[in-house]
């Protein structure tokens, strides 16, 4: 366990335990980290982010790391909390990370869908969506990664509340999505948005809602390939790289498409490890190796952003 903490980063945890560890990290490193509440979920659970900042002006250029938006993708939340501890452990030890934090702030949201996450642990391990109620339907929840205002209700979504890709009644109808959108818009100076999912070993960039090439597609492709190479350097885990629409399938209303269309150039989705045997049920023994290799990819992206601020 890192630095004498009693939190086992190689295990899956309850929401309460994750939030407690976030608080511990902030308490252990008060000059670098603070835990910030950005809103509440549909079922009134707090939504906490960790803000990593070495100070400087009020709204420095910033990076948003999003995890756990689809609640059953547990290695995403687990990787995120590991990453939080990695950042504080390596600051002032890793020159690349220190250089990033000297110029930019990092915001990390380990559990973007708290209600869904709790539901996977109390009722249904396979739950993906939020837990918001749909008037007139027995089916619960909206796909929070189809609810962003980026070609909302377009291809790759469904108007059926019972569908796993139900887009919701309108863009940002999900308070979990709205909270992130409002925070980022109010901040006004985000340069990078990375969304962690599982599973498939993919590193994708906009767009999901159209086959049309994003204006920065060439640069994003270069950045992504470099990140995938860095990731693979640890254990040989190979990632496929490309725009969402042509790498997997059309998907409208996604977080990174919204981010990109709202001025956040460096927008990427990671689909984490797929061993071919477990799907979403990646064994806990795989958490740390997955997080370690993902970190190399993330750091590569963040270093590029640091050197290419706009």
């Amino acid at each position, binding site marked *: 366990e890192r630095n004498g903490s009693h939190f*086992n980063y190689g*295990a*899956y*945890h309850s929401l309460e335990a994750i939030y407690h560890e976030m608080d511990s990290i902030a308490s252990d490193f008060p000059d670098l980290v603070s835990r910030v509440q950005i809103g509440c979920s549909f079922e009134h659970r707090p939504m906490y982010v960790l803000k990593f900042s070495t100070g400087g002006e009020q709204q420095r250029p910033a990076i948003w790391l999003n995890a756990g938006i689809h609640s059953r993708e547990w290695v995403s939340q687990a990787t995120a909390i590991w990453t939080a501890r990695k950042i504080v452990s390596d600051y002032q030890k890793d020159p690349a990370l220190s250089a990033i934090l000297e110029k930019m702030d990092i915001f990390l949201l380990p559990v973007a869908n708290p209600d869904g996450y709790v539901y996977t642990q*109390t*009722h*249904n*391990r*396979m739950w993906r969506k939020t837990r918001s109620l749909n008037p007139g339907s027995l089916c619960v929840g909206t796909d929070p990664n189809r609810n962003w205002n980026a070609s909302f209700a377009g291809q790759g979504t469904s108007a059926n509340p019972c569908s*796993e890709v139900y887009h919701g009644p309108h863009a940002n109808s999900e308070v979990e999505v709205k909270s992130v959108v409002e925070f980022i818009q109010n901040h006004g100076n985000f340069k990078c948005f990375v969304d962690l999912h599982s*599973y*498939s070993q993919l590193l994708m960039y906009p767009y999901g809602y159209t086959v049309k090439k994003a204006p920065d597609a060439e640069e994003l492709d270069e950045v992504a390939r470099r990140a995938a190479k860095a990731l693979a350097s640890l254990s040989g885990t190979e990632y496929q790289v490309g725009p969402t629409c*042509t*790498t*997997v*399938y059309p998907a409208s209303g996604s977080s990174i498409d919204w981010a990109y269309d709202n001025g956040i150039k460096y927008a990427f989705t990671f689909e984490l490890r797929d061993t*071919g*045997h*477990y*799907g*979403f*049920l990646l*064994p*806990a023994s795989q958490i740390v190796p997955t997080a370690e290799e993902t970190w190399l990819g993330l750091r590569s992206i963040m270093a590029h952003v640091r050197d290419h601020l706009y």
Partner: protein
Amino acid sequence: REKFLGDQVFRINVRNGDEISKLSWLVNSDNFKLDVWRSPSTFGRPVDVLVPSVSLQPVRSFLASQGFEYSVTIEDLQALLDDEDEEMQHNEGQ
């Protein structure tokens, strides 16, 4: 908590557009109550589907009749879930 007794996860290879259409019909059909873990895409990636125990036979028959290649990646989903649970409880105890 919901149990997944007897449920399995199939990884289905998709070779062309015709197979994508057929598989899309299968996964969208309400009859089999399939849970798609990795969706059909136009680009040749295998599709992962959670097949409830009651649908195993009809889904196998469909895949065989349509000439699909597939493998069972998770034979006993509940066993995996039980292992995961046990590990979490053990960690909590520690």
